[in-house]
């Protein structure tokens, strides 16, 4: 089992014990689309203006604009998170709680909320969470090996590392990052950035010669 599967397990447990009524949520996305078409401006459904601004700032730090495409903020990542959170109390709590944690941690470190902090303070915080995330992933995979692989069970002096004290922040950052990345790469902007050219009707399927020659030339099968 990889870490993603573990997280999924945790998430499942949370959902099972919660009072989630997903089916009860109506088709808010359709309403959202209709609303957007009508007004042209996005209307917040779950988050406060402050929370939303922080999500937007996180989105543009996670996937920034560059010479190829815009940022995840431009691609609607914060709106995506707001819409889904408004349909799911568990998800909303992950973000309400996570954003509050982030501001508290920023005030401790830099005496400023995340949104009001300087850019280098914001990225310093994210760097700390990324590093803590690496350590946490390593710890979890070691623990998995310890629990699951029979060959390791005889290691009498094996100790599992203590959980990182930033674990709550690591989990929140994982949520905001994965949903931001999803929002960006499933948007017209992100799909264009990658250069996906399919899901079209064609009368004939052909593989361009220049692509084949490019790869062959760079492969171990290059001639001469």
């Amino acid at each position, binding site marked *: 089992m990889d870490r993603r599967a573990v997280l999924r397990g945790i998430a499942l447990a949370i959902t099972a014990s919660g009072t989630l009524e*997903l089916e009860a949520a109506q088709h808010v*996305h359709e309403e959202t689309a209709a609303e957007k078409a009508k007004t042209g401006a996005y209307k917040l459904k779950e988050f406060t203006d402050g929370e939303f601004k922080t999500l937007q700032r996180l989105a543009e730090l996670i996937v920034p604009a560059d010479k190829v495409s815009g940022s995840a903020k431009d691609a609607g990542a914060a709106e995506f998170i707001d*819409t889904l959170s408004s349909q*799911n109390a568990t998800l909303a709590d992950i973000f309400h709680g996570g954003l509050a944690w982030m501001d508290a941690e920023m005030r401790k470190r830099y005496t400023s909320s995340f949104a009001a902090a300087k850019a280098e303070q914001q*990225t310093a915080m994210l760097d700390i969470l990324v590093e803590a995330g690496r350590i946490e992933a390593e710890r979890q*995979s070691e623990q998995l*090996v310890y629990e699951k692989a029979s060959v390791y069970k005889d290691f009498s002096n094996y100790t599992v590392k203590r959980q990182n004290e930033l674990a709550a922040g690591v989990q929140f950052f994982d949520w905001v990052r994965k949903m931001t990345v999803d929002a960006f790469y*499933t948007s017209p902007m992100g799909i264009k950035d990658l250069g996906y050219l399919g899901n079209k009707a064609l009368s004939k399927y052909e593989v361009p010669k220049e692509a084949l020659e*490019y*790869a062959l030339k760079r492969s171990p099968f290059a001639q001469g």
Partner: protein
Amino acid sequence: MQQNPRSQEVFDVVVVGSGAGGGTAVHVLTAKGLKVALLEAGPMLDPAKEFLEHKMPYEYDHRGAEEGGKSYFGKGKPFGFFATTSGGWQLEGEPYTVGEGSQFQWFRSRILGGRTNHYGRMSFRFAEYDFKPHDKDGLGTNWPVSYQDISPYYDKAEEFIGVCGTVENVASCPDGKFQPAPPPRVHETLVKKACDKLQITCIANRRAVIHKPTNGRAPCHYCGQCGRGCQTASAYSSAQVQVFPAMKTGRLKIFDLAMVREVLTDNNGKATGILYIDKRTRTEKTILAKAVVLAASACESTRILLNSKTSEFPNGLANGSGLLGRYLMDTVGFGLNGYVPALEGMPHYNTDGNGGAHLFMPWWLWDKHNKLDFPRGYHIEIGGGYGLPGVGSYHGAARRLGYGADMKTKIREGYGASIGFAGRGEMIPNDHSYLELDPNVVDKWGIPVPRFHFKWTDYEWKQARHMEKTFTEIITAMGGRVSGLSAAQREANGISVPGTIIHEVGGARMGTTVKNSILNGYCQSHEMKNLFVVDGASFVSNPDKNPTLTINALAWRACDYLAEEMKKGNV
């Protein structure tokens, strides 16, 4: 409660299940002029509504994460929002149990067409040796039929449903009646060159996708979204290719949302029909027929037989052998991904093709088992190309790369440079792998549920290790590097969880006598001549060939035989 009016219509045949087996059955039986009732536990299918084949993720505010982000909590559809599957490993109100020390996941489809709506459409014939496995290595049991018996029905099935491929003369994967195959993509050409170097056979893939007009169906238009269902039915699904056309004969009546509990019998060794729960009204209803054909899926058909207890058959219908439920098998699965720098920065092109891999590797060591530490073999499926990005596509990359401009650049550069291999191998049937009824649990329809027992043995584990070694060699030969899990983690989880490959077969196997099997070579009960099982339950072994095409062929042959026997008055 049971509604059984005196004047009730008696059908010639009642077919339970509308997937590959049931779809083939109604096609063959109605063509022979028989009056057929078809029962499906799910609803009718409306391809125009159900199939989302040309949608892009941004057409939905949830982008495919589903309402409230269900997919983030493991509660989304099993293959994602856009996939057409209407079913899964867990169905609300329809549980199953697993014996202590076992792992098994039971996939069930609940919609007209069953799993043929979403399946991979890999269509490989069994080899001659696959029908006589015991003769080859002393393990398992021979089939009561030979390749020569089934070959004409492979011909019929391939010509009717349409299978692309090329004639190759490979003994482990016999040639069929093929439609033209699409050309290999760039990464597949590199795989082939690596395989040539490693002396691994690599040939055009064989999939149930048509590339020329066939029986009024349009050829593939290369949108590459077969898993979402195909509105033009260019990719085979039993609902579109067999059931809908059979409805046009006027001889087919469909009962949907019909959850079958048991086969009805008289006391003279004959099946008289089916008892089912109408899911709309939660009432028991019956269908009367001169013959009963079960095609509800291997484990569901077995469950129906186990639940059809009579004084004559106290341990389940047609279970004189006591083997009903035994020799349950899945396919051995193992996958490994790699990163191939030669593909980085390549001029992008549309790699969707016909939706699946255009090449595959049939088992190439079929005559070299003296050099291997496991019996039987596997084939290799290839993944790669510039796929349609979706929710979850870059979670792994993001975790690896952190965030920011560097992450964005690396995701862009690595797009299309990853490659994946999946091994699909043969399991040896064993005494620890079977299903029985759980005496303590019923589903919400009041029907006792199956309890599964399953164990991989060293045969399967060693085969999976051979897959791992082979995939590593191919990735390395392409100039790539393996990007999978650490070795220690693989040590704990190096083989698919039983049931997750969704190739579960066996449970009511065919054989030569009433002592060693449930069915004869025509999928007909030894003990009840008007009872047939035409899904994967009849399988004696589970070769590395994906089972659907063989289910099509065996069901076709069984129904030809049934129609003839009815004409002769034997059934």
